[in-house]
């Protein structure tokens, strides 16, 4: 999901929220089994100037923040770490 620069489009926070809600409704209508939508806010993006003001109002209206248990784990290189998918075949 990418956010628009509403300052360029002259869209206020409420309208932007409502537009996003409509988009989400469309997603839910199209995929009836979808129960929710996740959004990962990257720390390096937040550190850039203006981004937090741009994104956080919307996140606050529609999203719920999930608390992090181990922030240090985010720095793990997932592609080098031995991560295997545990699965079984249903007979």
């Amino acid at each position: 999901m990418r956010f628009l620069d509403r300052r360029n489009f002259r869209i206020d926070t409420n309208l932007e929220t409502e537009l996003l809600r409509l988009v989400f409704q469309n997603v839910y209508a199209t995929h009836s089994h979808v129960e929710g939508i996740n959004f990962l806010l990257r720390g390096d993006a937040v550190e850039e100037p203006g981004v937090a003001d741009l994104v956080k109002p919307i996140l606050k209206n529609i999203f719920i923040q999930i608390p992090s248990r181990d922030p240090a784990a985010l720095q793990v290189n997932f592609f080098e770490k031995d991560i295997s998918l545990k699965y079984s075949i249903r007979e």
Partner: protein
Amino acid sequence: MRGIHSSSSLYYSPRQKCFEYVEIRIAKQEDHDDLAEIFNRQSEVLTAQFGEFFIAELIAYQNENQKALVAQVGEKAVGLMSISKDIDYQLLAEGFELDQYDNLLRSEFMEAVKDRKDEIVLAQKYEEIDRKREAQIKVLEEKMLTSHWGQRIALQQHVKARETLAKEKMSEYLTNEELYKTLKREDVEQMIDEWLAGFRLAQPGSIFEQEGVKDPEVNCWVMSERDFFLETLTYFGLPKDYISGNGHWHDWAYNKLLERRQQLIRKQPRAKKQTKRSKKFEEKKEEEVKEPESFDLAPLEKAFTKFCQAGPDVRTSLRNIIQQNLQKFVFIFSNENGELMKGRNIDVVDLGEYMKENQISWNPTNWEHISNILHCFGDLKFNQIVTRVMPQDENKKREEMKELKSKTVKKTSAALNVGKDKNQKLLREPSKDHSAQKDKEGATGPVDTEEAKNDLKPPGSPESKLMESPDARNLLSPDTKFTGSPDTKLMGSPDPAKKETDTLVEKYTALVRANEIVEMFSSYEEILEALDKIRAFDQMMTRLGVITEGAAVLKDEVEELKSKEEVEREDELNRRRRDLPENEWRQWCSELADLNSLPMIPPDVHNAIAINLFCIDEKYESRSIDFLEYAFSLFPERDYIILTQPHIVNESILLQSFVQIPKKKNAIFDDVLYIFHKDALLAPLITVIEIILRVILLTIFS
């Protein structure tokens, strides 16, 4: 890449944040107005078709088989689904390819149905196998019955039943000389026809056409029963073309000679004068030797007697005696070391002699039938060897034979000196049967060159049989030339009358020597093959009831065979039985008789509910599937929910989760069928997602 920033955070937006919660519940009367508004908006057809209050009726008449569900958002009903358990499963099974969905019935029931259909298929398959087998047996029976050998057995059984009558009739002529002189061919033909009354040559039946059998060995009979009778008797010594006069009075001259000789020996010889009287006497002698003009019944009587004697009892006894003495029998075909020589052949006419020499004991009266039986009933294969012995070569041949004989006697032991060498055959004397067989084969007859020295022995001796042979019969034919050297065996008397007799004997003997030696050699395998054929035909004819009287051993053999076949049949039936797991519906399905229909379906095995009516506000159409979960919760024993709609109607969002079932060929059901299995509700839970993201989220934020 070194992970992500440590101050990153995850946000989650649940559906309810953007989408109103749709609650599914049982419909109530107060939902009517909300639902009527939606219905009228979407379709006026329903109201026109079912009436103004059909929604109210649907809601009001709910029972354990029929329910009405409502989708509610806030305080307002936004959708309705009417479901029912009343489904015509037979109609659906006839119209749609529902086999892989167990025809929307309980799997246990369908397993019982499937087992029953498998049984029907197997039963049809086994029925076809049994039918083909029976047809094959029938074809084999017909083939054997209509063959030469089967018909010879049938003929034998027929004439054996009239043997006494036939012999009495022939005896009337043979014992009454005056009556005998009046016997003509027509009389004999009539006599034979009387014996054969009721006997018909069996023609191949329609089974060969029905089964499409193209067997070159199966032929129709075009000869008459009388011709077949006479042809069969040729195996037992009846001359070929006997009915036309061939081979008649062949021993007449011989018998007359013997009679005359006896008379001369008894009377005192008188001086012979060449007077008119003596000339008349000479002419009279010639007339006596000339054969009578009446029909000769003796060959027929002899062949007929032999044919009747070679019955199923004798044939079975022959088979068994060889089977019981197989080691001794093999010895006949063995070399000096007792090893069976496959290439060794013997003259079958002498087989009885060989068997006797090898201590194989049998009824003495039956030995003479061996050759006839093997040829007539066993179709014995043989190599025919013809040796011509001309009168002028007699002395040379005699010396050769003498030399060979002396060599052979030195070389071979008593047990092995028979049938081992083709040359040895020339040293043995042929028997009656041999002559008969040779005549059957159209040869002029077997005459041993060595035996020619000893011709005209008293009747009953092997030598005398030469004269009774069909070959000797031909000696008196008009074409025969009286040439050759006289034999001296009977010429010891100086009596002039006897000299005259001996002159005739001389002529006779010369002709005997001038004939051919025809021998039929068969190997061990060929003889066993013939015996097998005799066994097969005798057993088959007993089964078919052609052989009815006597032959107790044969009947025992057949009974034993039948009991073996019954045991094999039972084993096969046991192998066909299937051990199936217990199923409470097996008995129910046992009356199913065809593969295309279902048995009567008990309510306990119904496994589907049907959507009779469905309507929802377009805004909440994406939540249509929420009805299904609730519907299954109302009827937890059902696994399928189905919906039928005309093919011209567009698929709703609800139907996107359903499976459309293809129609069967020639189906008369117009609507399209959609089905949904309860387990499909779990489909979102097994959706494949991107593994890395999933791992990240679970690791950090769970």
